[in-house]
């Protein structure tokens, strides 16, 4: 049922957790799509559910405590929620792979970069249809090549180093090499480069953007850093409290946000032009065990109407190739 070029299609996903206080309804009908080769950002602040969404896609949410009362998650045409653990394992690293925020904690400190990279290559080979086992020399060469593609100089030497011996930027590059070496169709990047310095982060983002364009790999970028999204993604989803608030092309959405939450979020970002950030958004993110009914943003929204507390606003088309989930726009098109 997925479109021809859709690599990831999440439909009306609900994720609940049984916790001590009751039922924590984290994701409340989230839908989003990523096309093949497309770079999409999923943005939201701490606790908005973006990590839960990502973990669902990767099939790494333990159930229980997680419950999936509703929704489908199609990855390359197959519903992840219906996959067996073996099927999920097969798809990892090949259909979808992932890079994390902190490269040091996602690398094993007691193995060299080479050993870890070769493991990943072998893992990819294991599932490939037509391959025999590669010789040790071939594997080493493939590993060195992978490091060269992420522009790590002196690849042969770096293969013999331990993660601690590399700088933060080099570690992140090595991690990107591992994530891309088996040519996945979708790369999920969770706060990539956020732990790095700005000039190094800019280098890493430029590298990553180049590589995925070249290989036609789709990217789902999960971050709270709006600047990184603008740098990396073409299209963005703004999430608030387990709901998608707004969707659209990055530049037009950031220059002219429509949803009151997106507006508050964008206005909070200090600008290079020297414009002071607004006073932030009043109130705090709700507790998911007693999430507000209707639009979950309504208690913090200055435009809130009666309707907002009763009815969840559907994602509606608005001007500027935009989808906005807000009753302000759900009447007539602008």
């Amino acid at each position, binding site marked *: 049922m997925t479109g021809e070029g859709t690599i990831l299609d999440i439909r009306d996903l609900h994720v609940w957790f049984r916790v001590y206080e009751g039922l924590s309804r984290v994701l409340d009908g989230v839908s989003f799509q990523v096309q093949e080769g497309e770079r999409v950002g999923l943005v939201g602040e701490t606790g908005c559910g973006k990590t839960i969404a990502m973990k669902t896609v990767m099939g790494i949410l333990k159930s229980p405590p997680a419950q999936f009362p509703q929704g489908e998650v199609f990855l390359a045409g197959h519903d992840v929620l219906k996959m067996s653990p073996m099927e999920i394992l097969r798809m990892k690293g090949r259909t979808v792979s992932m890079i994390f925020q902190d490269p040091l904690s996602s690398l094993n400190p007691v193995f060299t970069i080479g050993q870890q990279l070769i493991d990943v290559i072998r893992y990819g080979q294991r599932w490939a249809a037509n391959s025999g086992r590669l010789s040790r020399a071939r594997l080493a060469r493939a590993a060195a090549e992978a490091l060269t593609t992420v522009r790590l100089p002196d690849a042969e030497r770096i293969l013999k180093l331990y993660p601690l011996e590399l700088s933060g930027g080099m570690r992140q590059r090595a991690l990107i090499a591992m994530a891309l070496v088996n040519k996945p169709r979708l790369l999920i990047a969770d706060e990539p480069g956020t732990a790095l*310095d700005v000039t*190094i982060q800019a280098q890493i983002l430029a590298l990553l953007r180049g590589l995925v364009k070249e290989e036609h790999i789709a990217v789902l970028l999960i971050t709270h850093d709006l600047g990184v999204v603008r*740098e990396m993604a073409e299209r963005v989803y703004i999430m608030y409290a387990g709901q998608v608030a707004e969707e659209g092309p990055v530049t037009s959405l950031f220059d002219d946000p429509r949803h009151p939450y997106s507006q508050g979020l964008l206005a909070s970002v200090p600008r290079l032009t*020297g414009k002071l*950030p607004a006073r*932030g958004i009043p109130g705090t993110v709700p507790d998911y065990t007693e999430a507000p009914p209707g639009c979950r943003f309504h208690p913090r929204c200055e435009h809130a109407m009666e309707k907002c507390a009763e009815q969840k606003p559907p994602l509606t088309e608005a001007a500027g190739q935009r989808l906005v989930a807000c009753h302000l726009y759900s009447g007539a098109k602008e």
Partner: protein
Amino acid sequence: MTEPILGVENLMKYFPIRSGLFRRVVGHVKAVDHVSFGVQEGEIFGLVGESGSGKSTVAKTIVQLYRPTAGTIRFKGRDLTGATKETMRWFRSQAQMVFQDPKSSLNPRRSIASILEDPLIVYGIGGSRRGREQMIRSLLEQVEMSGRYMYKYPSALSGGQRQRVAIARALAVHPSFLALDEPTSALDVSVQAKLINLFLGLKEELGLSYLFITHNLSLLRTIAGRAAVMYVGRIYELGPTELLFRHPIHPYTRALIAAAPVVTSEEEQIKPQQMSKEGEIPSPANPPSGCAFHPRCSVAESGCSEELPSPVEVETGHWVWCHQAGTLASAEGVSRAESGLAVVEMPGERAPLLGESGDRAEPASLG
């Protein structure tokens, strides 16, 4: 020119590197090397740089968490080098620090009230227990928190609330100066915006001066009146923030501003032309010779790797430590004729301490 509330001159902080059986000192990490600047009363002075630039060490040395290796720190006219116990006690109540991570700077086993009571007891503020309780309530109010948080523990608070408590703790002793070390970088933007506005409000209300350390260029631009750009332990550019962003001269400053992740097209347009190439930040234990940025600089000449650049004032109050400063400044359209100023070369390590937010201030030294 008024004397700055805080004057730092030729500040150095070297950490020994020890090695071998007898832990002999085999070298030094020059975390802070010949750093000079002044913070004017009521000013927000920004320090920007990447990791290893020494910006946090500067702050910690100023508030005397580290003993400086060399250099002088003057606060409200008093020299802190070899100061008496009383002077230091006075200074500690005058200058307070707020750290980046409120999770690790607040004791998880103590209630908010008990955290905030400590400084009051140490400095004998508030009198009786009842008086202190009153003080704690008003401190919380100052950081826009309700008194009902008094008996909660840090774990029950959100990141933004914890940072508010850390600010309240710093304000408890009625300081006039706060060193803020990345106080909002661990927080979400909407929370950051609230805190930034709180900082600005408190500054006006209580007449505070800030040393604001950040790696976020946009944040620096919005809140600091003047700022210094640090790289591997040294300052490479210093001036009114507006000028730093309008005419960034040093190739490192340009690289920083160009790399800043921005959200709007308008900001994209004001980014400067880059003059550097890909590279890593060098370790302060083994910095490149001469100008530390020369391996990444695309306009570097042979002299850059040999000699440290001297400061050059390219326009009023805007100093650059770069061998090519003159050329780069005229290319940038910073004409000396326009500002009516000659390019002044200052000898050796002598560095400028500047006056009020750049206008008409003459470079002068302290002490």
